[in-house]
């Protein structure tokens, strides 16, 4: 126990440092993070990738774990990659849509 309080906002802010290298937008604004659960120093992230065959699978999940462990107060981190529900562009933030010039959907 570190006594440091971790919240979802801090976790998401940290994860914004991870950029999807093909798309060039961070994984949070891209809408890849489906959920965060926090218990004491343990952080669990449930996330997806833009496509089930994404070759960046291990790199991104490993990167998320590394980033979480850098966060003060985090003693353990777990990343679960799911493909249900499948990622959709409606999950992107407004900034990401503008950056990618994403059309209507």
């Amino acid at each position, binding site marked *: 126990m570190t006594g*440091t*309080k*971790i*919240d*979802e906002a*801090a976790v998401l*802010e*940290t994860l914004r*440092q*991870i*950029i999807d*290298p*093909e*798309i*060039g937008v961070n994984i949070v604004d891209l*809408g890849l*993070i*489906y*959920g*965060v*659960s*926090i*218990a004491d120093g*343990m952080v669990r992230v449930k996330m997806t990738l*833009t*496509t*089930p*065959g*994404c*070759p*960046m*699978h*291990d*790199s*991104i999940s*490993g*990167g*998320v*774990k*590394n*980033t*979480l462990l*850098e*966060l*003060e*107060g985090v003693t353990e981190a777990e990343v679960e*990659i799911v*493909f*249900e*529900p*499948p990622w*959709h*562009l*409606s*999950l992107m933030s407004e900034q990401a849509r503008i950056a*990618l*010039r*994403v*059309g209507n*959907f």
Partner: protein
Amino acid sequence: MAVFLPISARVEALKRNALKRNASGNASTLQPFNVSTASIALPLSFIVAGLFALFAGAIWLVAQPQILTAYHYNASAVAAMHLFALGWLGSVVIGAMYQLVPVALETKLFSEQLAKIQFAFHVVGFVGMVLAFRVWNMKFVGAFGTVFTIGVALFIYNVARTLVRIPKWNVIAAAVASALAWISLVVAAGLLIVSAKTGHANFMFRFNPIGAMHAHAHLGALGFFIMLIVGVSYKLIPMFTLSEIQNHHRALASVILLNAGLAGSFISILLQLALKPLFALIIVAALAIYGWEMMAILRARKRRALDWGVRYFLTAISLLAPLSILALVLSWPKLPLNPFTGQLENVYGFVAFVGVISFAVIGMLYKIIPFLVWFGTYSKHIGRAQVPALAEMVSEKWQRLGYWIFLAALAVTIFGILFSNALVARIGSAFFAASLATLALNVGKILSHCFQPKLAPLAAPKKL
């Protein structure tokens, strides 16, 4: 006890929909993710070998443009053709397949070790074949062709065993399996043609040698390279443009028709049957359906801006339209056999191998090489340092320049071939070499990341 914190209501809504679909039995169940990317050294070795063959071939065309302006049944033309088809396209496509097939089909490559062994057979085989063709020594062509064939057999076995592992077959798997079947026939036909020229396989003498050569080359171009371009693009173009296949039946129809047309074309070209236009028409119909589906995928895309790699690829496949018209003309049985129609055949081969296949492959290389280098150099640094995006690893300026020079090269060279003008063909080939120089500069820029990674420190994590 852990508390699950929902990120957004939209995720929840999607989840609810998914649960409903699960309850009604319509949803695909979650598959365990089991993708493995082959080590980058393996595909990169094939790709680098292919690029050397491409640059050597381009210089050769500048030095000897008569390869293009004379009828193609001569030692230099056959040697150059094998340098392009086996050395450049074969190497790059096989290397890319070892990386892409597991990605596109969400599985693991059966054996990386076999692929490494194939690399040795492949390089020795194609280099020896090109040199032997150049001096027209058919015994050596046969010997090196056998070496090459052993490599191809290892490739077929490896990819076939990989296909066996995939949980659910789709149009991409069907196209890859078809390409494997056709390449085995292409290689067998090639060996038989050489055997006949060395006094063996005498039954081959019942076939017209030009017909046999055309059937062999045509099947290689369409059965292996175009089939793979069609199949793999059904995965890659939606992935790169944030879209999806719009009609799976239409996509599958394109592959089935292409197979039907190829089988008929191979036989009718080999036996010089009057049915050639019918099978050419079936292939054209397959490619038209493919184009229709690609247009639908692009119209549905959410990423409006297309990067240069995708533009190269899409321009290349749009050249299938004029190529198809030329194919229908050349398949006509009453076409007079004169020097001009001979040059039309050269134009057909040039547009197919350079305009369509090479241009498409260069476009895909602009996606594959940055990924491989990024994966090898930066993937371990994610979450520890800021790493460049793939788009930052290439020079867009060089890509744009190379694109336009390539199109100019195509136009000028086609003019030179059509009118058997070696000077014009040489100028066109020089443009082609200039376009490839921009590719070489970009590949150098991408590979420089292996030796000088561009890492920056992450912003300090927020303290709470």
